[in-house]
């Protein structure tokens, strides 16, 4: 009668997404925030001095970071209210599956917001996407994986503090540097049509970060509990 890691992970992810589907408020907020941010940034620069194409990568990944953070808080927040987390912790499900399930749900959430933000940037900044769309999407997925791994772990801890909404960004942002830098730099190079080998270095760095931190955060999550 055991509970497997994969089964529990999937059930938890599904449950989180079902709840988000029913309430939708966080997703709409994050989506609108992304659109607003993209629009506001456009007016923050002088379009005659700096072409939109050069601005776009920076804007895209800054917006990615902050809209990602918006969604992360709710991940463990929804367990707090009625102490549903206690039921999860005392169940037979492996601790790691709680983390992985929530991270998976967060990943879907972040990718969904990206699906709004990236086309918005492409539209508003007149990006010549063409053949780079696939590569761009690839970086978006990899960056989201890293963001979600670190963000889910920190939101698990932050939710138990008094200043959760403020603490989460302060803790997480340094960790986003090895995610956002490769993503933004690679995007810029892709859009400028630079040779592929320059992009490979950034890709490798991002991949390495993802591998290390998904593993580390999954392994370390059970240690946040009392036992």
């Amino acid at each position, binding site marked *: *009668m*055991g*509970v497997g890691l994969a*089964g*529990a992970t999937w*059930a938890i992810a599904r*449950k989180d997404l*079902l*709840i988000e589907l*029913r*309430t939708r408020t966080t997703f709409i907020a994050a989506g609108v925030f992304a659109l607003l941010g993209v629009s506001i940034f456009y007016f923050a620069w002088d379009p005659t001095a700096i072409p939109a194409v050069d601005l776009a990568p920076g804007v895209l990944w800054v917006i990615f970071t902050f809209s990602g953070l918006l969604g992360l808080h709710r991940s463990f927040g*929804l367990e707090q*209210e*009625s*102490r*549903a987390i*206690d*039921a*999860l*912790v*005392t*169940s*037979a*499900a*492996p601790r790691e599956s709680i983390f992985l399930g929530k991270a998976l749900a967060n990943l879907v959430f972040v990718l969904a917001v990206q699906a709004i933000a990236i086309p918005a940037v492409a539209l508003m900044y007149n990006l010549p996407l063409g053949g780079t769309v696939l590569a761009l999407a690839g970086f978006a997925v990899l960056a989201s994986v890293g963001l979600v791994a670190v963000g889910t772990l920190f939101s698990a801890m932050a939710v138990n503090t008094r200043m959760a909404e403020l603490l989460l960004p302060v803790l997480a942002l340094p960790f986003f540097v090895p995610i956002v830098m490769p993503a933004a730099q690679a995007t810029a190079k892709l859009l400028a049509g630079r040779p592929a080998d320059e992009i490979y270095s950034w890709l490798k760095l991002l991949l390495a970060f993802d591998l290390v931190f998904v593993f580390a955060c999954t392994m370390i999550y059970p240690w946040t509990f*009392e*036992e």
Partner: protein
Amino acid sequence: MCRAFGARTIVDGVDLLVGPAECLAIFGPNGAGKTTLLRLLAGLLRPTAGAITIGGEKLSRSPLARSRVGIISHHHMLYEALTGRENVQFAAQMHGVEDSNAVSRSLERMGALEFADVPVRALSRGMQQRVTIARALVHDPDVLLADEPYTALDEAGTRAVAARFSAIRGSGGSIVLVTHNAEEGSAAATRTARMENGRFFEAA
């Protein structure tokens, strides 16, 4: 089946053994440490000294041991956006329950089947409590830790709880019950005890 002793200063030097088919009711004033004791027994807290074992296995190390325990706390632990059925279904998945009828059966035993497909948010506190108990019992636990299970329940609900308690004891399970409801508590109990300022005193 369950033994615990010594802990933080909130629970002081408790040495406890609960056997099969027993129901231990713990009474006491607010702040006595009863809820903390229950959380310790549930494995939610780590004792500063001593250990909790179920059937000889340490709770924290063994998901299998955890699958034998059911918990009712005074938070309802339900996801308010989901329906009662979805909540109980999720709990069944978390405990690896394979029987597909277990969810409906558990809801029905608590008289919660009629409103099982309504989001929990829309239910009254009493109805939520019925769903909570259905959720706690869906995996047929051998050990039930119940903190104020009778909260907000009407007569029918209270009778359903009493019936469930008897059923658990009937199949050899143990219950540790914390309640302010002296009447129900004494009726369900085979042993009673009192906690005051973290110290535990068992009645004869």
